[in-house]
């Protein structure tokens, strides 16, 4: 298997404060990797480095063979090939659901309105929200907004999807509708890197689990191994705390 996302010795500082230390891991094509760890351990930072929303100072990240840190890399083009889903959905509130789905397809990929509409509606249908195409984001529930956000990313035909705690801002009864969409994607072979504390999702869907602590990747193993017996004490503590809920 070839690595779709390859991180090698990535380190990052905010001023004097080191957020990431020597992070090395990879996500193979079609693989689903869950990233977990305590608050402030650097999960969001790590995933944002992958599509260059955050710069890093040391190491290399390759996405489909393209070096993210190389100043010659066309970052907008790279980002247009990687889908990202945020904790707070980040739909554009001034645009209708249809326009949310089509704007980047047209302005970034240069698709015609017709083509963009077709594609957008296809994915909106996939996440079960076709009836809401004419509405605005503010008229939808959190779970619905997050599903639209996933459809918006998918409409760009990404080679991989990044998720940063996609369900942690949702009311409990809406979490599953979003996880179901993500599970479907995983089964279709999408390459996925998901920051999440949904351990049920990790157990069912993930191929590998990465555990981060204070900027280090301290566990990086197959999920069976991780849930069987995580080696580190911090991971044990973390898991027992999380699984109580």
């Amino acid at each position: 298997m070839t690595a779709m996302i390859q991180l090698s010795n990535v380190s990052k500082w905010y001023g004097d404060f080191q957020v990431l230390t020597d992070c090395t891991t990879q996500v193979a094509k079609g693989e689903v990797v869950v990233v977990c760890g305590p608050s402030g351990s650097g999960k969001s930072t790590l995933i944002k480095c992958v599509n260059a929303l955050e710069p890093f100072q040391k190491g290399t990240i390759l996405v489909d063979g393209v070096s993210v840190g190389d100043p010659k890399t066309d970052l907008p083009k790279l980002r247009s090939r990687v889908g990202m889903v945020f904790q707070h959905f980040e739909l554009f509130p001034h645009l209708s659901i249809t326009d949310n789905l089509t704007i980047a397809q047209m302005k970034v990929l240069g698709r015609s309105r017709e083509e963009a509409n077709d594609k957008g509606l296809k994915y909106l249908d996939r996440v079960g929200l076709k009836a809401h195409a004419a509405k605005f984001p503010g008229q939808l529930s959190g779970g619905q907004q997050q599903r639209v956000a996933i459809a918006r990313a998918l409409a760009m035909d990404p080679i991989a999807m990044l998720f940063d705690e996609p369900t942690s801002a949702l009311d409990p009864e809406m979490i599953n509708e979003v996880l179901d969409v993500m599970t479907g994607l995983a089964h279709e072979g999408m390459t996925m890197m998901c920051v999440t504390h949904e351990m049920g999702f990790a157990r069912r869907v993930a191929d590998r689990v990465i555990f981060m602590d204070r900027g280090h990747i301290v566990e990086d193993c197959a999920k069976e191994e991780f849930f069987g017996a995580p080696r580190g004490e911090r991971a044990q503590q973390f898991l027992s705390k999380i699984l109580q809920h």
Partner: protein
Amino acid sequence: MMDFSQIIPALPALTDGMLLTLRLLGLSVVGGVVLGTLLALARLSDRRVLSGLAKFYVNYFRSIPLLLVISWFYLVVPLIYNWLTGSFEPVGAFTSCLVAFVMFEAAYYAEIVRAGIQAIPKGQVNAAYALGMGYGQAMRLIVLPQAFRKMTPLFLQQSIILFQDTSLVYAVGLLDFLNTARSKGDIVGLPHEFLIFAGAVYFVISFGATLLVKRLQKRFAV
């Protein structure tokens, strides 16, 4: 006794004056918002020199009287125009005033736009970037449309102030609404009546617009 009847024959001239006032206002608002937006973007730029220059511009024009800018541009704009184009066509007082208003008001609009941009959550910009948009697209398609919506009441408020301030063009002899009323009143020997009438017109327009802004503010607050 007050005699307001002489205002009626002066109405065509007064209307022309009001049209000049409104034309100056409209063009100044458009030009001021455009230049103000560019200044706001420059001020928020990572490039130190650019943001420093924009900051200086804004602080400078916010620290000098508008009347000074009008008088000064009346002298300077024709010189610069002739120097740039090499022609010696005279530049009208209207054009000089328009340039003065645009440059002066831009400093105020810039601060409004800057606050508006800063009020848009960082996550919106990140989402735009994550979809492959560049800086210009993210601003134009995502951030500015939202910022302008939030800022509409403040824009209108600033424009009401500008509506009143356009009367300062009397300094360079432009016949706007107030200046027309004043000179007509002097000619027919009824300065009080004409000024009272002019005051009533300014009040009705400005106060009416203010009420409108209040209603908009309530709508936009939701």
